[in-house]
């Protein structure tokens, strides 16, 4: 089965549409959303509707910290993020909010685990930004492949037979064999707010038959999204970072 893994769309319609257009060419069997459909971006309603429609057709989706923040008013987000969520709440319909509220924290497909931030304590939104942060996910889960988002920069980790965790640099477009003597954790790059220096929508393809993972980037019209961010009166930093991809 070929799974398309999309994460951190963050209400960026242009980036989301660009990835969906790419998927019509690559024809995955299933789409999996790793959360953070909303927040930061100007099109939360459209993005939630689109994901909900795809879930109705068999896609999987888990919940991210921004999706959760729509329903609760705690201080878990930074100031800019909170400001956008407060703006977002007023732009979502009741069914859209309900959809976000009903999203599970984790999902599985065969021996693959999907979670927004980390497999250990998924509700704590831990950033997997190094080998030490990846280790606990391997410890708590026996999934052979763990796919997460949240960091907005793609990264790959493996855990060998002795339990040692190793980080591997990501090469875009190259199918990486997830050899079976190791377990793997992939941080998938963000669709709607990439932070690795390129204004390109990121996603990943997992082929469970060939046992290969491919990180991909798709160009999108970041200037339009940035313009919408500004027009909506959202923080300027959130517009300019889209242009720079950081």
């Amino acid at each position, binding site marked *: 089965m070929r799974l398309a893994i999309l994460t951190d769309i963050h209400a960026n319609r242009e980036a989301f549409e660009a990835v969906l257009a790419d998927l019509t060419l690559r024809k995955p069997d299933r789409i999996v959303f790793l959360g953070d459909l909303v927040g930061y971006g100007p099109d939360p309603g459209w993005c939630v509707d689109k994901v909900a429609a795809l879930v109705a057709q068999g896609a999987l989706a888990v919940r991210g910290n921004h999706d959760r923040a729509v329903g609760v008013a705690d201080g878990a987000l930074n100031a800019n993020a909170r400001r956008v969520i407060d703006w977002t709440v007023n732009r979502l319909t009741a069914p859209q909010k309900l959809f976000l509220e009903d999203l599970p924290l984790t999902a599985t497909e065969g021996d693959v685990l999907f979670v927004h931030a980390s497999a250990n304590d998924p509700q704590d939104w831990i950033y997997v930004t190094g080998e030490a942060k990846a280790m606990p996910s391997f410890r708590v889960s026996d999934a052979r492949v763990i796919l997460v988002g949240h960091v907005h920069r793609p990264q790959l980790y493996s855990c*060998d*037979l002795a339990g040692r965790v*190793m980080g591997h640099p990501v090469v875009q477009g*190259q199918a990486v064999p997830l*050899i079976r003597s*190791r377990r793997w954790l992939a941080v998938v790059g963000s669709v709607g707010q990439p932070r690795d220096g390129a204004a390109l929508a990121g996603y990943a393809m997992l082929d469970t038959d060939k046992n290969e993972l491919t990180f991909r980037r798709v160009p999108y019209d970041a200037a339009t999204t940035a313009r919408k961010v500004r027009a909506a009166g959202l923080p300027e930093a959130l517009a300019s970072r889209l242009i720079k991809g950081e």
Partner: protein
Amino acid sequence: MQQIKPQPGLEIDGFTLGEQLHKGGFATVWEVTHPLYRTPMVMKIPTILDGYDGPTIVGFEVEQMIMPRLTGPHVPRVMGEGDFSRMAYIVTERIPGGSMHQLVKRAPLPLDEVIEAAARMAQAVADLHRQHVIHLDLKPDNFLQRETGEMVLVDYGLSRHDELPDLLAEEFTIPMGTFPYIAPEQYLRQRGDLRSDLYALGAMIYQMATGKLPFGEPEKLSQVRERLWRDPVPPRALRTEIPEWLQEIILRALEVDPARRYQSAAQMIFDLTHPRQVKITERGHKLAQDGFWTVWKRKRAMKGVKGFGAPVSTAAHGDRAPILLVAVDLAPEMEALSAALFSSVKRMLVITPEARVACVNVIKTARLGIDQTTDDDGNHLHVSRLVALRGWAEGIELPDDRLTYTILENTDPASAILDHAEAVQADHLMMGARGHSTTRRFLGSVSARVVAEAHCSVTVIRLKDGARTADAA
């Protein structure tokens, strides 16, 4: 991590083990059969020590990651693989010809045999590098030969794929290669430089030509370190009939600093197949090892050295040091076109200053009968064309060893250019198109055929219509 113990008759995933063919330090190799495959096959099974045997396991994982992704005649075809849940293995086609080890045992070999084998080995390495893999453990045992002549590279346990996770990056307990053949930078634990493979090739050619290893057979790592400053005995001092050009190739491949070696396997193949064009330097002439003070100074300079500057990875090398084949039309009426070709080549060299330029001109011979090799004035055609070709290239400022001239003779110029491009492993072909004429439309132009059939990029230079009119006027 209990593994099934391999034995004759064992069945796993449809494969049945036959006779054990080889038993090495890290693995055993078995003959296997499968009801669905008729190809003769072998199964390689890592020998896992009791408990956790890190180095063997990681080496095997590297093979499992890299081998199934390789294609072509210079690598064994993978037929199946199994992980450590029951018994780790890789099944590949069986290469019946035996390894270069058999050949090397008879060294010193006749020189034409050395040169032939060296070129074939370099071909295999060039093909591997093209597929983003640096072997890093090249030795005679790892070159098998197909019945059709191609060398096949085996044993990828220490290899590095440019675009895949390097599982060995942090594995410091792993032996980093085979001592007689490893490059100085491998001793320094750099595993990202394709020129390490060219060093090992140099060591093997040295061995085939002289019957000796350039640095003996070190047993300890500290002895391997000596090659950072000590130069090998020049091959010609061991065997006088070795030509200077061959010694030049060998010693260039064995340079300590990778920047002074060949920069790609293709460049090495070029020299091995064009001996007359090898520029012989001090390296080719020398008949004794460097003197005490030279070596002492080098040793001092190497104190505390950590590496040799930026490695050349397989991802970049084709772009960085390409072989540029330029087919020049020397006909007098084509002067404007060949001038335009000249300026295009100059521009190309601005982008790729490391390029090697191979200039060719084709003498079109008659299909039947005896060819005229001298013109009406009695000048030897071949020689006069060579002079003209050199004249055309006047102003292309490259060191002699990166600018070569070849005159080809063929009834069919397009075939001559295409064959030569294959032979020199050209990365890019540049030529002029003569323009439009009725005959060309019916018979097809040389450039059109080259564009259609070449295996590399082709740039065709044309004169704009305006320019031609101006010419005619």
